[in-house]
């Protein structure tokens, strides 16, 4: 197992390397430059050119790439001009906020989605199935940002149950209940679509598995139906659910952008959107590499989980 993980980690290196190339290329294709963004209204072509030179942007693309790559490998992600601080500091700070949000949403979508899908399959065409199908359908059909806006309108502005935005109360908060209080709306808005997808997938995976011969074997053994469903069937269904979870993790991580904007969550997604708009090359590049690395790592974790669950996978 250890060498399998190591092998997967090593195979992730070229992927990450490729990502650095892609992000660098895309960022270099974007018109507008950081100097304009720094200088704001007072950006004259002359000033822009001088500032670009100061920022080292007049060098050839390839040279700039390798300078960046080399610095990054030594742990220096450069300095964000739009935030005027080291890129790495900013990313680390913001990334933890995103992890809290996306992590919570992911756990929510995994637990609720699988549970809903399993119940739905177990009671196929029953009332519970219909109810769940309906809720799931609504979940996957509403844009998360719209859902978020509506939640703010209803639960924060009208009912005043939950705080509108932010991660912690500005004063007198900072503890776990405070965090949870702030998390409820953004996490559920973010989890809505993913939960729907996972629930649908789980339902069909369960139905598929329930047709298998080994389920019949379990029944023929006299195993109780509850265990047949939640043990045998669900476990086997997990083999096809887990990859979906892996993909959903990517969606949740990405979808956090909207939610972070609507709920002013101090996360990395919003930072990256801002950074793209401000042409903050280093921040975008660093941030994307970071997020991508996280995604790749998570997928390795998914594969490892998959191989732990399914002994047939060669490790």
């Amino acid at each position, binding site marked *: 197992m250890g060498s399998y993980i190591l092998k997967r980690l090593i195979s992730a290196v070229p*992927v990450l390397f*490729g*990502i650095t190339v*892609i*992000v660098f290329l*895309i*960022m270099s294709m*974007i*018109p507008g430059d950081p100097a304009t963004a720094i200088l704001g209204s007072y950006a004259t072509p002359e000033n822009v050119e001088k500032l670009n030179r100061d920022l080292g942007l007049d060098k050839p693309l390839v040279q700039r790439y390798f300078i960046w790559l080399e610095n990054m490998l030594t742990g220096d992600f450069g300095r964000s001009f739009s935030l005027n601080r080291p890129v790495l500091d900013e990313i680390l700070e913001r990334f933890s906020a995103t992890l809290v949000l996306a992590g919570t949403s992911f756990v929510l979508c995994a637990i609720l989605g699988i549970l809903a899908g399993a119940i739905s399959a177990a009671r196929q*065409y029953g009332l519970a199935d219909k109810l769940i199908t309906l809720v799931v*359908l*609504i979940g*996957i*059909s*509403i*844009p998360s*940002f*719209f859902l978020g*806006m*509506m939640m703010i309108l209803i639960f924060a502005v009208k009912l005043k149950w939950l705080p509108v935005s932010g991660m912690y109360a500005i004063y007198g908060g900072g503890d776990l209940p405070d965090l949870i209080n702030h998390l409820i709306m953004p996490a559920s808005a973010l989890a809505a*679509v993913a939960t729907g997808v996972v629930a649908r997938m789980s339902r*069909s995976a*369960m*139905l*598929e598995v*329930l*047709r298998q*011969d*080994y389920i*019949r*074997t379990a*029944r*023929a*053994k*006299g*195993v109780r*139906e509850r265990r047949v469903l939640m043990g*045998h069937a669900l*476990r*086997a269904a997990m*083999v096809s659910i887990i990859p979906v979870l892996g*993909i959903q993790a*990517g*969606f949740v991580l*990405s*979808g956090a*952008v*909207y939610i972070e904007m609507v709920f002013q969550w101090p996360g990395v*997604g919003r930072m990256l*959107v801002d950074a793209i*708009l401000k042409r903050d090359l280093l921040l*975008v590049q660093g941030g994307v590499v970071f*997020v*991508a*690395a996280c*995604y*790749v790592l998570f997928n390795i974790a998914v594969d490892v989980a998959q191989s732990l669950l*399914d*002994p*047939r996978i060669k490790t």
Partner: protein
Amino acid sequence: MTFLRLLFRNRLAGLGAVILGIIIILVTITPLLPLPDPNATATANRFLRPFSEGHLLGTDHLGRDILARLLYGTRISLAIGLVSAFFAALFGSAIGIIAGYFGGRIDNVIMRLIDMLMAFPYILLALAIVAALGPGLMNALIAVAAVNVPFFARNIRGITVSLAGREFIDAARLAGLGHTRIILSELLPNVLPVIVIGISTTVGWMILETAGLSFLGLGSQPPNADLGSMLGEARAALITAPHTSIIPGIMIFLIVMSINLLGDGVRDALDPRLKSGALTRPRATTRVDRKGPVPQADQKGLLNIQSLETQFHVGPRIYRAVNEVSLHVSAGECLGIIGESGSGKSVTALSVMGLVASPPGVITGGAVRYDGEDLLDASYERLRQKRGNNVAYIFQDPLATLHPLYKIGDQLVEAIQSHNNTSTKEARTKALELLKSVRIPNAPERLDNYPHEMSGGMRQRVGIAMALANDPEVIIADEPTTALDVTVQAQILTLLDDLRRERGLAIIFITHDFGVVAQLCDRVAVMYAGRIVEEGQTKAVLDAPAHPYTKRLIACVPELGGGRRELAAIPGLPPVVDRLPEGCAFAARCDKAQDACHRGYIPLNGHAPRAVRCLFPEEVV
């Protein structure tokens, strides 16, 4: 057209089609409707509420008519969703097919590239693409399509890999087709339904994503608006004039929901398994719906199947898989059921403990008595207590019938604990004994093996051990050796025979192989088209078959030692059990058939245990 019928059989898909249809009709005729100019501003009339005069849905922040903008916006959103889904599917599928078909290094390189794109947060990728190309609907479309290419590519690659390994691809190569032709004419038609399913289930998602980009201000250019940018523009007035947000929000919801419903319908309709009802959950027990009277107990044997009728109800068709089958087996006895595929032998066996998948299976008549008790009448819990405990099964394919993710030790322990309140430790000890009793070498280590780590023969031994776990009185073995090599088969048969003698088991042994029956069974019943056509002591039946079917079947099996020769084939095919002919089901293939054979009901005649269902038997029984 079967496609449409299947599609609309799903009522939710029908609902989706109706909603989407209405929306599409509305937006198609939008230019003809008496609507105000969607771009005409009247800032003094801004934020009129719905149902205001002249503005059915009110006006937006510039006093523009929301209804008109909504309809025009829907046109754009729908078009974008469809077009981007189409292009994502086009490029994604092309990449996926190429990677999947050629495999090896090409596959590796392509899939690594896809991995890279997938690891790139997709909204940022879209955002960066739009930032690079400039805002505008076309660019948003390109971005949305581009970020979805990887998902199609991955999906289609998976399908292609499984198809590329299929034999018809090899056949095409042998027929002289080159790679391009194989991809286009052999692979593509098979992948196409999957692509269509992919499109139909992602259009909704694409619309959501485009809406997201527009919401961020990267979509359509003013004054035009798609639904997403309508939402984005209205966001500032969410609290003051919520209708400006809620109306486009609901529209997006309706479109995406109806597309999803329809997409699900398309997926199900294109999925061949749906036709066979394979996507419905089998119940814990087979449905019993006995029309006629329940046969009286007649004290035959330990397990007594009386006039069993099991059918499969698939749509309007009724497959009479088992028809009026009566069998019984006593302790220490081995009963063979022999027949070709589709003869109903397995269904008979599975009906005993209610294991026929239901739907579509229904037991429509007869009784199954264990020790006098009618199992078809028993509650689920009562039946469950009997399963494995009194009547145990051994199935055909030991790889498919053992749970692939549980260690075999755990599966044995589970079998024991389902009927006994033993501790796991005790159960494990028992499991070890069981493995030893079926003569598995290195039994203690084998407990921790997964099924796939064992050979076919060893797996089948585990299957037998599991059947023995609770010392059942009856074992039903459903072609337990068919998937095994001859040398292994010989070992398994010996094992079963030994167990029967040692434990006094009653065995029902289902097979299509006369050699096996001859070696193992005391009595044999021959099934054809859901009925027993002949039964008797094994030797009697084999030595002097009475039914022409039995006789000819024995004749056409080559026997080792016969040398090179012409075989006595039976012409024709067995009838399909949803269209059974009147009279004898074998009559059409029988060279002795006469007019009487094609008429009426032909009973099973003879002196027990010998009986034959034939008007003109080969032997008198």
